[in-house]
């Protein structure tokens, strides 16, 4: 690491351009971060934040542009070059080897000094990891295997990796997505401590309030271009949002529908096993009424996925029961659930929600190909399928409006339109929507929210499972908070604050 001089910024990117087939992810981006600051990189999903940080960590090579560290031009041909130059990154999807211990993950790929030796000395590494953890308040057992850790702990391991390598520049990509508000607070404290030592933190986010809370300065990216850099203390969430989206945001029409009294989906004392055979859902009970949006809030990995899968029949349940309009539902059979009128917007859009290499038309009839309209005995009615697809593509404004496009070529927002179009076309009574707007841009989020509200207004019972508190507070009629597989409290979104819900999400509501 060369000596830092106070005149040149820690990181300077000039005219960075990166093209992928069909998209220009970064288009002449300029960016500067000073020594000892938390610099936020703000932008919508798809604005090019992740691509830019992958360039800064040597994963991608820019087509054009220059990178300077502490005033010196550098060229990264691989992540190793970036690491050696002192740049580390905590990816949104952690880059950890699940079968390895914490210490093994930390030392992986290290090749400096002592680490150049051929032999591996696990004890010394474990000691060092424990020391670092103590110093920065990032406690994890060095000998624990990654798969045994919670997502929050895994994130600590990622930060420890950077500290172990003495990185001067640390990039964090959407780090709070897996944290409760309180855990996020603790992370911010760690980041501040690191900044005070003169390190530079680049904090990628699309959440305005947390950018304001943690950053010194903010650079806004929009559609692959850098729009400008502003001081965090001098800007408001509104001004940041305007920069990010390029227009003033509507206040979000919150004309909520009137829930009716009839209970549609009733869940009693539901217990479900997770993938490893542990209890993932523990005695959950709730009722969703017609025309109502019930939100389940919680930090990722607290049984939400298992809950959604159980209700939609994709996962059998161990104990308890569910009923729809008073009729008992059997678990573990998606086809029965579909026939009973349960629609499902799954968390994993590309891969579960649609078959990625099949056409839009095939994906539109993914659940209805069995119906009398779409098939005659064992034979498919090709023409009816095409007509249905074209009609829905038109009605939901899917782009490109071509029924034969493979689904994987659609953007996230258009993909979600295909999913919604299909799910609503079956005229369901209940919709289970799991993180329906994750990874979408603002326009697409608004469209999805609009569809959900309309559906509720038509009398559909909607169970919204989300980690996004803002989304929950704008959409939900009632909020149930899930923690470690159990509902730990129910709040009224009108009176509740983010902090209250956050405390419940961290298990604080438990006596």
């Amino acid at each position: 690491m060369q000596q830092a001089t106070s005149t040149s910024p820690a990181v300077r990117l000039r005219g960075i351009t990166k093209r992928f087939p069909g998209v220009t992810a970064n288009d002449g981006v300029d960016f500067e971060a000073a020594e000892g600051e938390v610099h936020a990189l703000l932008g919508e999903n798809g604005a090019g934040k992740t691509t830019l940080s992958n360039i800064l960590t040597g994963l991608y090579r820019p087509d054009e542009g220059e990178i300077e560290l502490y005033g010196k031009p550098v060229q990264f041909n691989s992540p190793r070059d970036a690491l050696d130059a002192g740049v580390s990154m905590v990816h949104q999807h952690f880059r950890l080897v699940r079968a390895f211990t914490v210490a093994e993950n930390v030392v992986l790929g290290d090749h400096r000094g002592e680490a150049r030796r051929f032999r591996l000395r696990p004890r010394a590494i474990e000691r060092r990891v424990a020391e670092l953890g103590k110093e920065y308040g990032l406690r994890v057992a060095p000998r624990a295997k990654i798969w045994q850790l919670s997502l929050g702990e895994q994130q600590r391991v990622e930060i420890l990796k950077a500290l172990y390598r003495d990185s001067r520049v640390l990039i964090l990509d959407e780090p709070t997505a897996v944290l409760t508000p309180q855990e996020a607070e603790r992370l911010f404290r760690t980041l501040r401590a690191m900044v005070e030592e003169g390190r530079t933190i680049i904090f990628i986010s699309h959440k305005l309030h947390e950018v304001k809370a943690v950053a010194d300065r903010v650079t806004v990216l929009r559609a692959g271009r850098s729009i400008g850099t502003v001081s965090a203390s001098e800007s408001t969430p509104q001004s940041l949002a305007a920069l990010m989206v390029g227009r003033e945001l509507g206040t979000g029409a919150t004309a909520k529908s009137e829930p009716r009294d009839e209970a549609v989906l009733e869940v009693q004392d539901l217990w479900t096993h997770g993938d490893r055979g542990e209890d993932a859902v523990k005695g959950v009970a709730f009722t969703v009424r017609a025309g109502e949006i019930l939100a389940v809030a919680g930090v990722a990995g607290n049984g939400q996925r298992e809950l959604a899968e159980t209700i939609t029949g994709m996962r059998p349940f161990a104990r308890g029961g569910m009923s729809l309009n008073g009729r008992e539902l059997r678990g573990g059979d998606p086809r029965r659930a579909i026939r009973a009128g349960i629609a499902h917007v799954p968390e994993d859009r590309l891969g579960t929600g649609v078959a990625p290499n099949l056409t839009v038309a095939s994906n539109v009839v993914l659940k209805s190909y069995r119906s009398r309209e779409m098939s005659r005995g064992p034979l498919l009615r090709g023409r009816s399928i095409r007509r249905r697809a074209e009609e829905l593509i038109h009605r939901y404004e899917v782009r490109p409006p071509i029924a034969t496009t493979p689904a994987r070529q659609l953007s996230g927002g258009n993909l979600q339109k295909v999913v919604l179009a299909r799910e609503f076309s079956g005229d369901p009574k209940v919709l289970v929507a799991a993180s329906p707007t994750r990874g979408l841009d603002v326009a697409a989020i608004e469209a999805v929210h609009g569809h959900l509200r309309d559906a509720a207004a038509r009398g559909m019972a909607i169970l919204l499972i989300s980690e996004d508190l803002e989304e929950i507070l704008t959409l939900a009629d009632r909020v149930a908070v899930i923690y470690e597989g159990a509902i730990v409290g129910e709040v009224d979104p009108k009176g509740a604050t983010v902090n209250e819900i956050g405390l419940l999400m961290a298990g604080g509501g438990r006596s």
Partner: protein
Amino acid sequence: MNNSIVVVVAASGVLYGTPLLFAALGELLAERSGVLNLGVEGMMLVGAVMGFWVVQRFHAATPAVLGAAILVAALAGSVMALIHAFLVVTLRANQIVSGLALTIFAGAAGLSSYLGNDLNLADKPARHAFNPLNLFGLEKLPVIGPIVFGQPLLVYVSWACVLLVGLYLARTRPGLNVRAVGESPAAADAMGINVARYRYAHTIAGGAFAGVGGACFSLSITPQWVDGLTSGAGWIAIALVIFAFWRPELCLVGAYFFGAFAALPYTLQARGVTIAPELFQSLPYVATIVVLVLVSTGWTKRRLGAPASLGVPYAREEL
């Protein structure tokens, strides 16, 4: 006592298990880096024929010729593996199809046969061969004598290899890196490990081991060359890696186990007991299927399972 059936079967189990052990160690290295290579049989056959060619072609002191033969066999095996590595690592081809293609290309009706025929090697006894040793003069010891001390040199070499591969994977930095590449290439890549280089290196090393395994047949067990000499040992080696939960020390146990199955019917026949040899010959395959079912269900899955990214090509810039 050393003539008792148990000792004879155990001793020949070690002998017949050795080519399996070499080939399985090689496949283990490749699979630990995430590359499934179904071309083991082909690589073994090419190793066998090239090793045999050296002992027929060159005239020098036996140890020198045999040493050269082993080197050439290893080289031949690794050249075959290089084709596979290029296809699956660089060109990201389907690993199953590529491995099968390698077996067809190099196997009993392919290159190995072509070379054997063209170099005029068929049906002639080897000029030099690895003969059973009498290590420390202890071959006559009861029971362990013939099993442990009366084997050809390659057996002892294989023991050293098991030790080296085991230590390499568990105790060294490159070993840690290769395990990371097999488990999660994305994580390894982000930490500056060159995924492609590791996969190439270990696939090629795997080919070298397979080549030596083939040479065990043509230079030690049946010192001659005929088409399809290894008669399916390569497939058993692939099975063995699974059977051994991807661990070198268990490969050793499994190899001798499977070797004994292969040897048992002939030993019995020599003593006038006739049991259909197919019964024993099929045991390795059936055992592997049973183990595979156990591995894919229940508690063993997480702790003993295959490298998580086995058979999955890795590419960074996909959008």
